[in-house]
């Protein structure tokens, strides 16, 4: 589901556009929910290595943010989400996804629990109409905070030290904890990179001041402002899926059967069939043991990124495709996310091959690259979970 942007209107400035503009040597902007967002500010290599080795700052303000308040907020969200959200503690953040009535994933996101009757949902897709639909019959109030709350992703091994230098003590925060470190400034130990990192949330109009504060604090810790391309590298190394790339949000598809169930996306652990009714549960009961395809993390032979490649079983039968692929600088592997049809995903996966197109000095060619399934993330450093975190 892409937001329609009026071509006459053009892209809108985000809350820290003056700072990004000043840093942008690449002048590479893309449309993120109508905002001009940096794909790259300098070069993707510099930015990626800052993220993995030092600290990186990425403006995530274009994410959609919704506040759900009211006595029945928990019940309403539990009916909408596939996981049992009552298990998310106060001042905790939960990764969650939600489905349509056919059990197809609509989107995923992070759910912040401020209190039993006060939650925030942060997600990639516009979700206001869906939330209003989901809220009907419940005593809750939904507010679209997308333009009121700004957010930065501060990610990388030295980010704890950056925040400490800024005067914010987050040493007690475990992964998925959150705390208000100053009036109006919320820090959650969350992120989309699989590394040590935090997300900082603040009123839209305070964003520039907060950016400057973090920027000053990060000076000694190698802090760099980055664009989406570096984040995309990191998220793939962490094995995270991107909506619209690795799965099609069900409500944004026009063709039949383009949606996928959480089981097919490898999120079975986030579906709690025993928690009572939730949206799509009846369909998911049937779909649970009959996935049509599965998402596999694979190591692709060679070094050519396999994005967009078709997958063949025994080099003959077409059984799937690759949605994201990358030569991982940190894992030192050619990694990819592969959608493979059943039953081929289940049987002898060593016989799966990606047909990769190569272009060498004007000459196109194809070659078959063997896929080796991998369990778990491609890169999962222990520093991401250490509490208190190391300074570097």
């Amino acid at each position, binding site marked *: 589901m892409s937001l329609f942007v009026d071509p006459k209107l053009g892209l809108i400035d985000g809350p820290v556009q003056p700072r990004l503009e000043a840093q942008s040597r690449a002048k590479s902007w893309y449309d993120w929910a109508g905002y001009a967002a940096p794909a790259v500010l300098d070069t993707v290599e510099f930015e990626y290595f800052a993220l993995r080795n030092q600290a990186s700052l990425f403006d995530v303000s274009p994410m959609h943010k919704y506040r759900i308040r009211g006595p029945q907020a928990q019940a309403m969200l539990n009916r909408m989400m596939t996981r049992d959200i009552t298990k998310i503690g106060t001042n905790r953040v939960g990764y969650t996804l939600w489905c349509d*009535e056919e059990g197809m994933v609509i989107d995923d996101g992070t759910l912040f629990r401020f209190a039993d009757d006060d939650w925030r949902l942060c997600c990639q897709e516009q979700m206001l109409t869906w939330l209003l639909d989901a809220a009907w019959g419940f005593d809750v109030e939904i507010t679209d905070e997308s333009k009121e709350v700004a957010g930065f992703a501060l990610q990388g091994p030295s980010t704890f030290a950056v925040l400490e230098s800024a005067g914010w003590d987050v040493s007690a925060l475990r992964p998925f904890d959150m705390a208000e470190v100053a009036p109006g400034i919320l820090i959650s130990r969350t992120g989309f990179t699989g590394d040590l990192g935090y997300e900082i949330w603040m009123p839209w109009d305070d964003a520039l001041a907060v950016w400057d504060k973090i920027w000053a604090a990060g000076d000694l810790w190698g802090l760099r402002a980055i664009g989406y391309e570096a984040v995309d590298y990191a998220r793939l190394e962490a094995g995270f899926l991107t909506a619209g790339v690795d799965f099609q949000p069900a409500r944004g598809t026009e063709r039949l059967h383009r949606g996928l169930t959480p089981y097919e996306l490898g999120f079975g652990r986030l579906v709690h069939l025993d928690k*009572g009714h939730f949206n*799509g549960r*009846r369909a998911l009961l049937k779909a649970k043991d009959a996935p049509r395809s599965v998402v596999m993390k694979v190591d692709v032979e060679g070094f050519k990124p396999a994005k967009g490649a078709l997958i063949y079983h025994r080099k003959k039968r077409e059984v799937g495709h690759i949605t994201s692929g990358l030569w991982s600088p940190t894992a030192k592997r050619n990694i990819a996310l592969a959608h493979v049809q059943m039953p081929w995903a289940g049987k002898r996966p060593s016989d799966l091959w990606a047909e990769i197109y190569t272009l060498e000095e004007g000459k196109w060619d194809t070659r078959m690259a063997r896929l080796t399934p991998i369990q778990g993330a491609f890169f999962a450093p222990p520093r991401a979970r250490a509490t208190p975190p190391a300074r570097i």
Partner: protein
Amino acid sequence: MSFDAVIIGGGINGLVAASVLARGGKKVCLLEQSGHLGGLAAPGPDGGARMAHLLYNLSPLVRREIGMDAHKWPFKLTPVSTVALNPDGPHVVIRGQKAQLADGSAHPEAEAYRQLNGQLIRYADILRGLAEGGPLGIEGRLSSISGLKELWRLGRIGRKLKRIDKSEMRRFLQMLLSNAYDLILDDLKDGPLAGMMAADAVRGGFAGPRSPGTVFSLIYRMGHGGEVTWPEGGMGAVVTAFEGAAQKAGVDIRLNAGVARILLAGDRVRAVETTGGDVIETKTVLSSTGALRTAHMAGVDAFDIEAARRLRNIRVKGTVAKINLTLTKPVSVAGLTDDMCPARLVLAPTAEYVERAFNPAKYRQMSEAPVIEALRIDAQTFSLMVQYAPVDLDGGWTDAAKDKLRAVTLSALAPYLPGLEDAVAQAEVITPDQIEAETGAPGGHWHHAEMALDQLLTLRPANGMGRYAMGPEGLYLCGAGAHPGGDLMGLAGRNAARAALEVGK
């Protein structure tokens, strides 16, 4: 207290559902919120007609399956003649398919009317195959018993359709989705006869004769031959007969027992809780009230978000008010030599009059020149269906609004029933909001959901709930909001009960 099945609501559909389940070997309890059975068919204190007042769609199939006589109803049905009132000339009297003028002379359009009517009855016969039984379609595997049965039924309806010759088929498909106004005026001049048909096409609905799909609702009324009948002993006799069938089948009937909640365990029905606080354990609940109200009883969170959205968007606006007149002295119909009783007087001088009567309803106003179906039960008792009296009347149905409706109605009838206004001893006005409060019919709508093409068959009451089961396991809709709709037919109740029995097997 524990039952195999609990039925919510003791209208005709509720009683039929209860009887079918009980005859299928289930221990059944029926809960009715009011102090009497019958729902919209429930009689007034005199046993006459409080709300519904005529029968034309009672299903013989239902009669057989609830254990009444295989060949006839246990009450006597008297065919009712229709009088299409004419402000500028002789009224038109319709007996069966024969239309003649009130003075006994031949109606110039008698033959055209007979042909048109006959055609509609033929089409209705085809469509009845769709009404009897659940909506068509095979959901399970073809090799299953129910799949084969469904295939057999499809085949039978297909054969029936195939027997129609090509030009007739073309006409059938042409007119099925069209509007009654065009269809009627293709064959008849606009006058009382055309007006009467137009009024019949829209009665009970939020539609005018020019609204699409009104040919379908006209055909729907003719599903069982189109004959309008009045039961001897009034509606009381009908309700007593259905109640008797339920009693005989062993149904435990409880009055003054409204249902507050349907209780669930996980994703299945566990019990119902009455407004009195009693908990009755059961694994199966069939509700004959509105679909949305039923969903509220079980809790909105027991339904998918899309299902809840569809339920709250069901189009259901009642437009008919009921006025029951008791007179101090006999009043006869001007210009009618034969003092017919019972007689159905239709005030709809032209099809255009009916369309214009509908216009105010779009703006939440009552018709100043209403369409009236007046059943003359005897010379001193009239039962009136007054249309359009929209449920969502601007300003609400206050006493003043009711007085206005009464006055508008009486003055509309005055030219045809001289002396009526002075002879009124009692005029009880029952508006759609009252019908909803008393019977649980959403919007005070007879069919619990507008009988429109987007709300029929598997789309009734809403997509995904077309096979009576809705939401949690064990919950069924058995009222007029389910396929094939209302009209004191009993088929929705019968089909829902059969669906529930099928699951229990």
